């Protein structure tokens, strides 16, 4: 009767229909499908396996308790041991129809399998899903774009590189004559003054280099490489300057041969010319 009314024809609130099948949402349903034999409402003698907090229970419904909905479902705790639990199901459902017995055991097997899997997975590392918050994501993205614009990265990098060039961290690789050379260009016209000016240049050079060295110490600590490099390079610079004074031809060529200057400017890498002289210096730096 119940089946005729609910299951087959009229409305059952537990029934879900899909294209190929009907499902039953009732929690006491044994198979999950909506059938005459698996409807817990339509069958007065019914049994299910349900698990709570990792323990499996066998629920049984008997026709004698039909008028007492509170006591309708009888609950039996099954043992943790798989085989023993199967035996318990058998002994509780003795004389019950084969279908229910079989399906109960199948369901119990499935449940124990997934419980085992849960326990195994919790031992492994689990991926923690952190929900993204849309408003925050958008805010962060916008702020990042604005920060990028404010950063002016190319300019900053170029400035930093030029700073390092000025502070002579590259040493003699780039033969850009520093400010001294501009002075030399000016002195190019008046050659009579050139010798006295060379001395001035030397002093200026040393002063400037020393000044640069001292300043570099106080410069912002964010350039650690700079600091360390400068320490070593400045020592070598001092050595070099001594060498320079001995070898008059070397650096004084910056002042003495102003004619080469403009030509030199066009070709910044003069490594070809000065390789023999500068190699020991660069080697000691690289080491």
């Amino acid at each position, binding site marked *: 009767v119940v089946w005729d009314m609910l299951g087959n024809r009229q409305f059952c609130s537990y029934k879900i229909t899909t294209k190929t099948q009907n499902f039953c949402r009732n929690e006491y349903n044994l198979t999950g499908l909506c059938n005459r034999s698996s409807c817990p409402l339509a069958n007065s003698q019914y049994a299910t396996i349900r698990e709570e907090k990792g323990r499996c229970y066998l629920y049984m419904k008997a026709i004698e308790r039909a008028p007492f909905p509170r006591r309708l479902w009888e609950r039996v705790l099954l043992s943790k041991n798989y085989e023993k639990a199967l035996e318990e199901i058998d002994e509780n459902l003795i004389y019950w129809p084969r279908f229910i017995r079989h399906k109960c055991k199948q369901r119990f097997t499935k449940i124990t399998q997934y419980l085992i899997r849960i326990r195994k997975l919790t031992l*492994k*590392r689990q991926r923690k899903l952190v929900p993204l918050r849309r408003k*925050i994501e958008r805010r*962060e*993205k916008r*702020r*990042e774009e*604005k*920060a*990028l614009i*404010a*950063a002016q*990265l*190319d300019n*900053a*990098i*170029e400035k*930093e*590189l*030029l700073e*390092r*060039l000025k502070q002579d961290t*590259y*040493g003699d*690789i*780039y033969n*850009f*004559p*520093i400010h001294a050379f501009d002075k030399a260009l000016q002195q190019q016209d008046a050659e009579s003054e050139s010798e006295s000016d060379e001395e001035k240049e030397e002093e200026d050079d040393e002063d400037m280099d020393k000044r640069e060295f001292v300043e570099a110490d*106080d*410069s*912002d*600590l*964010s*350039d*650690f*490489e700079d600091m*360390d490099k400068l320490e070593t390079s400045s020592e070598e610079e001092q050595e070099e300057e001594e060498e320079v004074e001995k070898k008059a031809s070397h650096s004084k060529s910056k002042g003495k041969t102003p004619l080469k200057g403009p030509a030199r*400017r066009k070709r*910044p890498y003069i490594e070809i010319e000065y390789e023999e002289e500068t190699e020991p210096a660069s080697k000691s730096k*690289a080491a």
Partner: protein
Amino acid sequence: AAEHGGQPAPERVLFPPTFSVSEIKNKQRRHFMFLRWKQQQRKEKLAAKKQRRKEREALGDKAPPKAIPKTIENQRVYDETTVDPNDEEVAFDEATDEFAPYFNRQTVPKILITTSDRPRGRTVRFCEQLSTVIPNSHVYYRRGLALKRIIPQCIARDFTDLIVINEDRKIPNGLVLSHLPEGPTAHFRMSSVRLRKEIKRKGKEPTEHVPEVILNNFTTRLGHSIGRMFASLFPHDPQFIGRQVATFHNQRDYIFFRFHRYIFKSEKKVGIQELGPRFTLKLRSLQKGTFDSKFGEYEWIHKRREMDTSRRKFHL
């Protein structure tokens, strides 16, 4: 209706004093009045500017100096942990912290780059490019190995740093940088990752030369330690022949990473060409020991409720 038709607005619209544009209930009319009000404001502003300029020219040298426009960097809330370059305490700290052996040139950095489980194509390629950028680095893939177990093995094999790139939905989105022998671990959120082929440039691949490192704008104590962490990834002696530079630029708590090749065209001009991947990082947390999410001692965590309240306050 009259207001709608009169498109060329009168020169000087006189509003009665207790009238405000937002009190008109009709949206169309309200919008129209608002536009008119806006135009008026703009005219007044222009007039004021002209006036000021005239005054400035009239005064000539005696004019007051121009006002500096306010930027977020100007208005930044002063952070008391800003590092003063001459601070002795900071210098002492740095001489004794975990990076001291690196800065004293006792250790050579050796980096291990890895990903989270099952990396997708983009992440794999990013890892490869990253390993070409950072010298002396190796990429190993993880197949379900726990980080906690990898770390002792890494220490045994003399790695100094560990980088884990976390991936989500086929794009890398997180970076864990861990300094290995007992070092701090920094967890970043990574965004706008561009692989080499997506960057508009015509450069070749980075060579094997050791690049230089530029660290910009790391002002506070926290920023300092992060900066040192980055610096310790690269070997200490850059090879200037390579002309490559890796930049970590901090701006408003976002760290931008770029990799360039530079050329000095003259003493005042340098050209840079971008090669190599680029990405931006935002620091999420800094842990004292090596990577341990449960029992680690956190030095700094980004707490959104407390730290994101002001737009002018930055932590790095």
